[in-house]
């Protein structure tokens, strides 16, 4: 904690930075009677989350997950290179907790992260898909296992630094996009169940872009100027193919690059290097721009074509998580769908299926739909759920 007698000024900071925190927490009674576990990644967002909750008086407990061996995840396996000690992020999280005066623990989730996130990630690439491991991580290690641990510790809530807003709705909690469009992370939370949302809290979702760093700086946290994490935590920048190869040796088998008619245009060194819609790195000279339009894991082919071939009028979602009170209607419902984390939502009609999936018909055909990505459904600002974009073409 900041120095003695600073509570008043802290409360002013709090009121200034996050006037709606108490309402968002939706925990009746005095804050000090509620234990809140904060998932601290070692980054500035979760540090600010913890700081806000400490200042508001909650009984805050920080937990950092050890998810992978920082050396082994990026380097080829070296005999005896296994280190027991964690990377910089765990160190940073611990320092933040010390500054805030809260207990902090590290949970060793390496094994489950490997089997539930990293290996499915590699398998997806091998199968010609483009996975979103952050969703799987939230779905398994964070909001199932860590949440369960938070319950074991007697916590009334598990808070994370995700940029989404949680509101108490008429039929239970709802998730709204983060106020700052540029930082909204609702895409990665589509698989969160209503049960999980009962315990989850996202104190940062209503804050402006630079507020997080201001909070961290005001609390004197060493991470206030730390760079945002990039892309996928266990993949060094631009190097996912090596991770795939290490997890699934032999996954990067070479094959042919063919056009829509099956003519061979060139060779590639593994379909895992490609994603739908990709234009660069094909190594083919053609009169017009060529894009990856399909990945065929059976023939190990990368199928390329012109831009218009990328467009698709519909898609199929599997494993749909639906957050509304009434089930997803088979007769269809008007929603917006986001098919990539980096793309804006687009209007569509979504039909519920009896197999737990959904059929999505876009108002206008969409380019670059990649199997394995998430199709995330919104009604205005509200996250309604979503599913995994399936390989099977819509029938």
């Amino acid at each position: 904690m900041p120095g003695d007698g600073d509570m008043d000024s802290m409360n002013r900071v709090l009121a200034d930075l996050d006037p709606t925190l108490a309402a968002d927490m939706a925990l009746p009674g005095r804050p000090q009677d509620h234990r809140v576990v904060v998932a601290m990644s070692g980054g500035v967002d979760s540090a600010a989350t913890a700081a806000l909750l400490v200042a508001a008086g909650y009984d805050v407990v920080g937990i950092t997950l050890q998810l992978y061996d920082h050396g082994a995840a990026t380097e080829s396996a070296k005999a005896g290179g296994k280190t027991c000690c964690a990377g910089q992020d765990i160190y940073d999280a611990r320092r933040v907790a010390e500054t805030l005066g809260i207990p902090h623990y590290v949970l060793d989730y390496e094994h489950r992260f490997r089997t539930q996130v990293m290996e499915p990630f590699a398998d997806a690439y091998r199968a010609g898909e483009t996975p979103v491991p952050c969703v799987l991580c939230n779905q398994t290690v964070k909001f199932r296992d860590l949440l369960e641990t938070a319950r074991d510790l007697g916590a009334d809530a598990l808070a994370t630094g995700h940029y989404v807003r949680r509101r108490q709705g008429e039929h239970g909690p709802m998730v709204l996009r983060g106020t700052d469009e540029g930082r909204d992370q609702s895409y990665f939370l589509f698989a969160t169940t209503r049960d999980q949302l009962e315990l989850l809290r996202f104190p940062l979702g209503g804050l402006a872009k630079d507020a997080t760093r201001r909070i961290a700086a005001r609390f004197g946290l060493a991470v206030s100027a730390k760079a945002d994490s990039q892309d996928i935590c266990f993949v060094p920048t631009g190097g996912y193919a090596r991770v795939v190869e290490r997890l699934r040796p032999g996954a990067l088998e070479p094959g042919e690059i063919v056009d829509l008619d099956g003519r061979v245009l060139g060779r590639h060194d593994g379909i895992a290097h490609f994603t739908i819609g990709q234009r660069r790195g094909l190594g083919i000279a053609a009169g017009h721009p060529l894009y990856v339009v399909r990945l065929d894991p059976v023939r190990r082919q990368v199928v390329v074509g012109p831009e218009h071939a990328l467009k698709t009028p519909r898609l199929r979602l599997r494993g749909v998580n639906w957050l509304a009170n009434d089930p997803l209607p088979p007769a269809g419902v008007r929603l917006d769908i986001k098919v990539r984390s980096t793309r804006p939502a687009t209007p569509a009609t979504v039909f519920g299926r009896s197999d737990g999936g959904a059929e999505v018909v876009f108002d206008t055909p969409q380019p670059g739909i990649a199997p394995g990505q998430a199709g995330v459904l919104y009604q205005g600002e509200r996250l309604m759920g979503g599913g995994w974009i399936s390989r099977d073409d819509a029938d």
Partner: protein
Amino acid sequence: MTDTIAYLDHNATAPVRPEAVAAVAEVLSLIGNPSSVHRAGRAARSRLERARDQVAALVGASPSDVVFTSGGSEANMLAMVGTGRTRILVSAVEHASVLEVVPEAARIPVDSNGIIDLAALEALLASDTRPALVAVMLANNETGVIQPVRDVVAVANRYDALVHCDAVQAAGKIPVDLASLGVHLMSVSAHKLGGPAGAGALIIRPGVTVAAVQRGGGQERGRRGGTENLPGIVGFGAAAEAALAGLPAAGALALQRDRLERRLEAEVPGCRPIAASAPRLPNTTCISLPGVASEVQVMALDLAGVCVSAGAACSSGKTGRSHVLKAMAVHPVIADAAIRVSLGWTTTEGDINRFVTAWCALAARIGPRRQARVASAA
């Protein structure tokens, strides 16, 4: 967090005894290097030798057998490397500071109580004629199980093998006598018995040659170079003397420990102390709450102001599956849910009550979810 704590993790480090605090404080302001010729040096030397007497007395050794080190890990390293023997046998439940010095060493298996398999030891020794070094600890840090070290020595002597005994956990908790155990080398550590961390000793029986690992300076009769950590060593000596005097009280902890185990078994169905029927240190219990990961128990207890350990904690604070319980073939459902509670010279009935209350509250809070997890893991 609670202001006061119930500290039940003496096997990790024991609270420093007041005798040691006083001795360290006094010596910190003393001028002089024990190797110096002048009177200041002589004064320092005299404090050092007094500490050597005290440590020797704790384990029934001669002062000239005692080589001071920076702690138990260094003493183990010196023992494992210093004899020059390259054929090395270690029990499967040794501390990492023994195991990791010679990862390729042959492992002597243990039974389900964690007690060394003497027949397996004999078979290993008989399988090769090169002179061997056998490392078997006196008492295990995680379970408290006491090894039949005298029997190990009897077997080893038939094959002219040297025996190193890691007595870091045993010293100060049970009587330790170098001569009656018959071992050739023995390591002890200050902070496990109420001295400061950063001091330890390797006890080397006369006639056993150990070459220095840390060289230069000729200190400790050429067996450990470097200016002695006088405050640490003097604190070690004071703590050793106090621990020796406190052995009857340390032995009586077994009553408290046994009562504690009975209370837990009565209050929490399905929990079980590990190796409870084996000879154990009087202060240690390793107890499992199947369905609740060890690390979660440690966290929940810490939040209630109670300090205990799970497995072997590494410096990052994360815990790994215990190699000790694995060697004992304890089922993973039990091993992954085991914690170590270790009492000591500061332990009160209040500390134990606080632990029992917090642990039972944790078990109650998880309630039926615990059985469900056990069922799904089994």
